[in-house]
């Protein structure tokens, strides 16, 4: 009783809480400071996209130019090619790459021996731990005109294929090598979802005469559907933010007609040519498309998936 009345008299407000638990706020301090400095300050800094930015005058001192930098990009002769390259590379990548881990997980799920399954998984996951630099390096040595793949190709044709410099092969090489590296790892989440399926469900269906394909269709796939929906929305929302890490490394002087994407262009214009404001405008344009895509895809998936979306 006594302590209750004391509590009422002191009226513990949020100021009192913060004062009493100040250590908790100190715990948050490093993360908050770093986030402000390296995330929010650059967000503020991206207003240079609307300015004629000069590092000497600074962000505030540079004069406003409105949408000039955006217009310059939209009306530049490269715009259409770069935009379509970005779109094609990621849409094809998504369409080809998305189903592979799912099929892989369904296949792994059929293996009865736990040891064999574990060993297969161990091997299939391994490429995930290779760096992009090494992966691209491997592509260059394997696919060079005198490389191992072309020694097979030349058995059928008389001329080696220049996979790494011919623009016609850039997307294929990029996407297939991506699947080689990432599909195994991406299947983990599906494998785990499948391990939650009650085996009795399968047994009962088998007794009722359901074939393996029918059981996969009616038991396994519905289990995976929510995971698929979330991963698809996230992947589709990131369509225009396809990473520069690999595209930049795979780029050669010859294959730019297909390998120049928005991200690599931002890097070149911004850091190599020093055109900060223009480069920032291109990056901002890209982020805006991304956000629109995320919202759109989420709405569509929500409709198809009985109201279950990302948010």
């Amino acid at each position: 009783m006594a302590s209750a009345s004391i509590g009422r008299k002191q009226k513990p407000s949020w100021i009192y809480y913060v004062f009493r638990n100040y250590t908790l706020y100190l715990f948050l301090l490093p993360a908050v400071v770093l986030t402000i400095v390296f995330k929010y300050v650059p967000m503020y800094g991206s207003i240079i996209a609307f300015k004629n930015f000069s590092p000497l005058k600074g962000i505030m001192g540079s004069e406003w130019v409105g949408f000039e930098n955006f217009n310059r990009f939209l009306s530049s002769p490269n715009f259409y090619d770069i935009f379509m390259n970005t779109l094609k590379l990621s849409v094809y990548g998504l369409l080809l790459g998305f189903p592979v881990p799912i099929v892989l997980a369904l296949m792994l799920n059929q293996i009865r021996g736990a040891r064999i399954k574990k060993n297969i998984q161990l091997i299939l996951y391994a490429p995930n731990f290779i760096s992009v630099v090494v992966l691209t390096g491997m592509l260059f040595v394997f696919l060079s005109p005198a490389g191992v793949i072309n020694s097979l190709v030349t058995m059928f044709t008389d001329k080696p294929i220049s996979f790494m410099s011919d623009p016609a092969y850039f997307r294929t090489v990029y996407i297939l090598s991506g699947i080689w590296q990432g599909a195994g790892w991406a299947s983990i989440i599906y494998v785990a979802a499948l391990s939650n399926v009650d085996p009795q469900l399968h047994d009962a269906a088998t007794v009722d005469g359901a074939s393996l394909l029918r059981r996969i269709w009616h038991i396994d796939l519905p289990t995976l559907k929510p995971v698929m929906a979330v991963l698809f929305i996230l992947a589709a929302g990131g369509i225009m933010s396809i990473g520069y890490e690999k595209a930049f490394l795979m780029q050669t002087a010859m294959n730019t007609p297909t390998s120049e994407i928005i991200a690599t262009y931002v890097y070149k214009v911004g850091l190599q040519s020093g055109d900060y404001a223009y480069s920032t405008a291109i990056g901002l344009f890209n982020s805006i498309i991304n956000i629109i895509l995320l919202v759109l895809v989420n709405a569509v998936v929500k409709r198809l998936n009985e109201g279950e979306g990302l948010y």
Partner: protein
Amino acid sequence: MDIHISRKDRVLLVITYVLLALLVLIVLFPLLYVLLASFLNPNVLLTKGLSLNASDWSITGYEKILGNAAMLRGFLNAILYSTGFALATVVVSVFAAYPLSLEGFVGKRMFMVFFLITMFLSGGLIPTYLVVKDLNLLNTIWAIILPGAVSVYNIILARTYFAGIPKELNQAAQIDGATDQRLFFQIILPLSKPIIFVLALYAFVGQWNSYFDAMIYLDNNQLFPLQLVLRSILIQNQVDPGMISDILAQAELKKLSEMIKYSSIVVSSLPLIVMYPFFQKYFEKGVMVGSIK
């Protein structure tokens, strides 16, 4: 319980096994090929396949790689950056996650929104570069460690883990008069070793394998991490003249530079590929915890 498998299903199962075996081969072949070509003359491997002729085998590639100063420095820099980055991101995320996991923490929602916004909006490459430049962090280890140290994803993972620790432990300690600080250091942290390990592992591997930040923030090659050294060898085709200066014949030169490429791939990827099976459990845990938000 033994259930009869129909003939059609059996055929399908056999097809599945064959396909999986094929996939395993597709994944293994390039890896084994690189390993072989780092010991066996790549030209011989390409034209004649496996050779039993001892003169075709050598460890010259490895000798050149391991004796190369740039490569060695790259290794040490990579260890330094990866360890530093893992340490920073774990400390920052774990400390931030603890208050956010407490029920009744005043400002919880506000802080969460503050962090979550950065997952969807970013200033982009150039504005971030300008901040790093203005802080005079270019060409320092801090440019590699600090900008990415706060990972919202890590904060969410740690928060979810803390929230799963039984409340009774907290209450009992609070009755005994323990402060939040003591609670965190003496009860929560010791119980959270697995999640801390997972976060550190991911951060270390991610940093070890990345080159992009180092490429834009560092231009002093004394500071280059391994991946940037590899980039010049593998992609820009610039084998350090010091490695091959003593060789004059063109064909010999080409052969050796090929072997150097293969052995540098092996040397740089081996640490991760070898340690990964031991940590597979933890890596998978990382993927799983991330999926339950």
